[in-house]
């Protein structure tokens, strides 16, 4: 178990290094630099060069790359060009919105879709199954920006629920309003994510129920309940856990859209502004943090997998 864990961690670190290096290269290649964006229509080449020097962008790329890593290893992700504040605190600010959004939505989606999926699988072909599957399909095809806007119209404009459509200017210092502001975004994300999960759970359970060992268990005269919960579900959970891990990374990306619609200052909208402002240190920092989360989620999935399926070996 331990050598396996160590190996996984090494791979994880290598992934982080690769991801951040690729982003560094990408930022070198794409046109546009922060100085000319800050100067806008007042830009003239001399002025741009002066500002670049002030921002330290006139240094050769290799030196910037080495400097950045030297800082990152000490836990210093540099200073945001756009906000002239530490990248670390900008990312923490973004995460304080995105993490609750993503984690709550993922938990809710799991809680909703697992029972629904099992129900649909057990009554495969029934009207109930058709209804659940059709609902799930709808949830998959409806784009989340549209769902978000419809939620605003339905719940806030029509039903006049006392929910804000965007985050308070005080941020989390106004915790009640901040929480209320997250309700509809969480619902929006939950809807689109559960749709996918329901189909996944249903398919997985159906697959398992058709296996020989289930037939054996049934022929032994075990009750349907025991067959399902003792034998089938544990196996059906394997692909679902994998999907949940993938979902987490998908969610961080899907959050960009939802955060835009609901005016949330999360990591998604932060990365959008960072990229459009060519805020190199901020983009770099966000990528590393996102990659770290995704790598971590995959690691947890692998460990869960091992727990659920004793046949997985660590060798």
């Amino acid at each position: 178990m331990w050598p396996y864990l160590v190996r996984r961690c090494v791979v994880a670190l290598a992934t982080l290094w690769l991801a951040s290096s690729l982003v560094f290269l990408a930022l070198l290649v794409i046109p546009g630099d922060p100085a000319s964006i800050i100067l806008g229509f007042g830009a003239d080449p001399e002025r741009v060069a002066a500002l670049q020097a002030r921002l330290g962008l006139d240094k050769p790329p290799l030196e910037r790359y080495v400097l950045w890593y030297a800082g990152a290893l000490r836990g210093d992700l540099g200073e945001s060009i756009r906000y002239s504040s530490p990248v670390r605190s900008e990312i923490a600010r973004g995460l304080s919105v995105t993490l609750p959004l993503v984690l709550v939505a993922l938990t809710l989606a799991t809680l909703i879709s697992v029972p629904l999926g099992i129900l649909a699988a057990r009554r495969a072909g029934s009207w109930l199954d058709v209804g659940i599957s059709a609902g799930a399909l709808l949830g998959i095809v409806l784009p989340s920006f549209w769902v978000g806007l419809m939620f605003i119209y339905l719940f806030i404009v029509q039903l006049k629920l006392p929910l804000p459509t965007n985050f308070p200017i005080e941020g989390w210092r106004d915790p009640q309003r901040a929480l209320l502001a997250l309700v509809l975004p969480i619902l929006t994300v939950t809807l689109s994510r559960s749709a996918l999960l329901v189909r996944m759970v249903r398919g997985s359970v159906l697959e398992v129920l058709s296996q020989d060992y289930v037939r054996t268990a049934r022929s032994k005269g075990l009750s349907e309940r025991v067959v399902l919960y003792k034998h089938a579900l544990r196996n059906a959970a394997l692909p679902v856990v994998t999907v949940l891990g993938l979902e987490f990374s998908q969610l961080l990306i899907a959050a960009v859209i939802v955060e835009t619609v609901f005016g949330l200052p999360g990591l998604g909208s932060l990365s959008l502004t960072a990229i459009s402002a060519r805020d190199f240190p901020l983009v770099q920092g966000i990528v590393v943090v996102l990659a770290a989360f995704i790598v971590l989620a995959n690691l947890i999935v692998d460990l869960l997998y091992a727990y659920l399926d004793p046949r997985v070996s660590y060798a």
Partner: protein
Amino acid sequence: MTKGWFWVLVLLLGLAVAQNRGGSLTVAIQTEPTVFDPSQAAGADIARMVYDNVLQGLVKRNVKGEIVPSLAERWTVSASSLTYTFYLRKGVKFHDRTPFDAADVVAKFNRAKDPDTKRSGHIRPELYRDIASVSAPDSYTVVFTLKQPNQDFLFTLSLPESTIGPRERKLEEQRVRPIGTGPFRFAAWERGVGVRLERNEAYYIPNLPYLDRVNFRFMGDGDAQLAALRAGDIDVIAYSMLPENAQILSRDPRFKVFSGSGTAEAVASMNNSRPPFNDIRVRRAMEYAVNKDELIQGAMLGYGTKIGSMRSPGEACYEDLSNFYTYDPNRARQLLAEAGYNAQNPLKFTFTLAAEFPYERRIGEALAAQLNRLGVVQVSIQVVDFGTWIQKAFLAADYQMTIIGHVEANDIGRYANPNYYWRYNSPQVQQLYTTYLRTNDPKKACDALKAMQRKLAEDAVSIWTMSLPALGAYRANVMNWPGASLSPGILLAEVYLAK
């Protein structure tokens, strides 16, 4: 008896004022600026929020776009037009309670004209190049001496870049929390969410401002703005509202839609130094091939004003050239044929659009469709982000045709700069602009400016598609909303909520 009536009047006036006072207003703004000090970064959004509301200059541009006194009560100009003397308002305090006086003005403009931008942190020293010296004979008088007459000197002083902060204030602090003398003080900035301004209790004009608080919220998405307005989370969509949302809201009595005049021209630029647009016949063909009325109807649902040169109807010395080229596709084809293009050998070029600007994008797409309709032109549209646009199109002039809104007022002088991104080099226009800038006769200046507009149209330098509307909406109880965007700022001091 008369004395009694006087007091009744005072009481009534007091009541009227009390009626207007108080409340908070939430305004949607399209993009979040990088900093909030207009002397340290470009961007119209900075000025929209802080100009005159937080940061004030010696003079300002009011809602009508006129230059009026602000921190200077009055000024005199010497007969030579070389000396400007400003008499400052007394008893003015900055938001940090330090008193404002002539030393702040002198410090500001010495910093502004310093060509070493690395030291000064001021992004546009070229604006102040004509200032030979600035001095303060006493605490409330400031004297500017110019190297040569400059017709735009007062205009320059009315720019957001010319606003004045406390002389001891650190630049890094002013960037994120600007301190000025305006009716509102800058209270909070939550990244990615918005900005809060609070009433300046010590404002030097009694009873102003009316509002206790103004929140600006950064909301880029037009539909999200509409939803937030209907949900009651915002009170005003300040500008750049989508035309179709304007139509929806104009049917709803709870809201008022406004389409004010502005200083933003949507300019489809042609690169005058490169094929195919270094050929004046091709440029003129483009002018004849564009149906501006149809563009305004089709792309903007009728919001927008037809123009024919680089000036908007609300600006001084405007020359109406909107019908200089009447829509005439046959004439366009004929000119293209003269330049060697026909159906077998069509004119092909790339039209670069910046993704972030909804108006310009839809106008650009409609314009490309009109050109393609000729049958002799094949336009390929390329969409880039603003960072790329600035680098490639604006700085390197590496483009053929592009479109962008030039928001600034009085920016026609850029056509006199041969290095500007449209790469238009006309000694005649440069001469006219010098005449305008260096004369001290206002009539002569205006004549030169009008001649310049005509010459630009004759040379078909760019396609000036329309003067963009200041299109927005507010809740019906919002009073005195400025509407037009002829001032760089959204002037809020006199806005109030009806009770």
